[in-house]
């Protein structure tokens, strides 16, 4: 089954490839004294060609903040976004590149992240999708898989995150959330029943920008699980992970 899926995937890869060529490309003129072309999309790849001011180049594709261009002579290479931003379009307007040279992180609204941590002694892996409604407030959906010594489980829910000082490079945040938690005891141990309960959580966290669009975050949470037994269960949880912004 898995093998068949992989073969199908490989076939799709080969079939999907020619679709790249069909797109209409953008043509720009070099306005800076020169434009450096690298052999690959990164600082580490050497400069192998320089395009002079006034020359026309074709922009083929973008990979991270690097752009593949083709010169009039058909030479292909990669140009850094900062350099390509100093070119002019056919109508004389400067080229505006999405996400290049944009320093304010507030422009990003969507976030996807993963984190790893500890949930009352069990290890947790979480996947997070967030949406920011303002500089301070964000709504996040989170799903976690828990694996402990005596039981496994998962939890899924939503949370509201408030960042009082979004402009700080190392910025604290507060969060409130709720959701559903499912716990099932390990196969090799005494068989108690699976349980699904509601939980509520409050926590504090710290986030730090590691790079453009890339953030580290760590948080400490206090959870209350509303069990069907007499007492509610209180659980301590911490997480650390990273997020990418769109």
């Amino acid at each position: 089954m898995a093998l068949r899926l992989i073969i199908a995937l490989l076939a799709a890869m080969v079939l999907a490839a020619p679709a790249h060529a069909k797109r209409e490309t953008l043509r720009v003129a070099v306005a800076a004294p020169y434009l450096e072309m690298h052999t690959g999309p990164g600082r580490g790849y050497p400069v192998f060609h320089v395009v002079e001011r006034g020359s026309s180049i074709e922009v083929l594709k973008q990979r991270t903040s690097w752009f593949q261009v083709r010169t009039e002579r058909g030479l292909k290479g990669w140009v850094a976004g900062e350099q390509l931003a100093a070119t002019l379009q056919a109508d004389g307007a400067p080229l505006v590149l999405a996400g290049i040279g944009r320093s304010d992180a507030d422009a990003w609204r969507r976030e996807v992240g993963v984190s790893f941590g500890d949930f009352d002694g069990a290890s947790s892996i979480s996947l997070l999708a967030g949406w920011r409604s303002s500089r301070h407030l964000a709504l996040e959906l989170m799903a976690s898989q828990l694996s402990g010594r005596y039981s496994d489980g998962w939890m899924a829910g939503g949370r509201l995150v408030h960042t009082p000082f979004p402009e700080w490079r190392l910025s604290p945040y507060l969060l409130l959330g709720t959701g559903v938690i499912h716990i099932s005891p390990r196969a090799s141990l005494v068989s108690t029943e699976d349980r699904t309960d509601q939980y509520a959580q409050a926590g504090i966290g710290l986030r730090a920008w590691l790079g453009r669009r890339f953030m580290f975050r760590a948080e400490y949470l206090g959870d209350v699980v509303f069990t069907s037994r007499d007492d509610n269960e209180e659980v301590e949880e911490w997480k650390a992970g990273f997020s990418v912004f769109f």
Partner: protein
Amino acid sequence: MESRVFGFLLRALPVLLLAAAASGCSGGLFEREAEADRVQPVIDPQVERREVSAPKIDTENFEVGAYAGFMSVEDFGSNTVYGARLAYHITEGLFAEATLGKTDTGKTSYEILSGSSAPLLSKSDREFRYYDLSIGYNLLPGEVFIGGRHAFNSALYVLLGAGNTRFAGDDYFTVTYGAGYRVLATDWLALHFNVRDHMMDIDITGEDKTTHNIEFTLGATVFF
């Protein structure tokens, strides 16, 4: 940000020009009133509004593909492993990667030597399935030269992540780390050679221990 400033300047241009014209005239307003009826302004403030928008450029930050190789599961022998990989390139150095893989495991040496008719695990429990989420860094970007005419971009990258392994009827939290070598055969097709260790605590063989399950794979991915 730049586009916004530019747009604002364009929009403000007629107002600025009118203001400049008005201040220039204000000195001799009464004397020139009659003249103003006849003389056209030097600059026509009717500036045509230009749409400033980011042009559509094909972005290729995702990489998807499949891999196959060998995986050694501690105490349970080495077997073929298959998997799929999805990566997102965040910057030229950093990328996030998700992998999903599967291998079958063999019998432990105890099971073979004792000739026991009662196996340790059932057939379905012998399947070792995992998923991982990792962060990778292109540590050594470079080029590979084949002959005098061909050069291919390459990168040696390191990976660190964690995930979950389903084995012997239970889930195990797994820490993974490794390194890979990526060679770009074309602009969009990459070949990978990857070595990773899947580290997890298990108690299947009767004692709690940390196992190292090492995986060697060869794979291909496309950028899209």
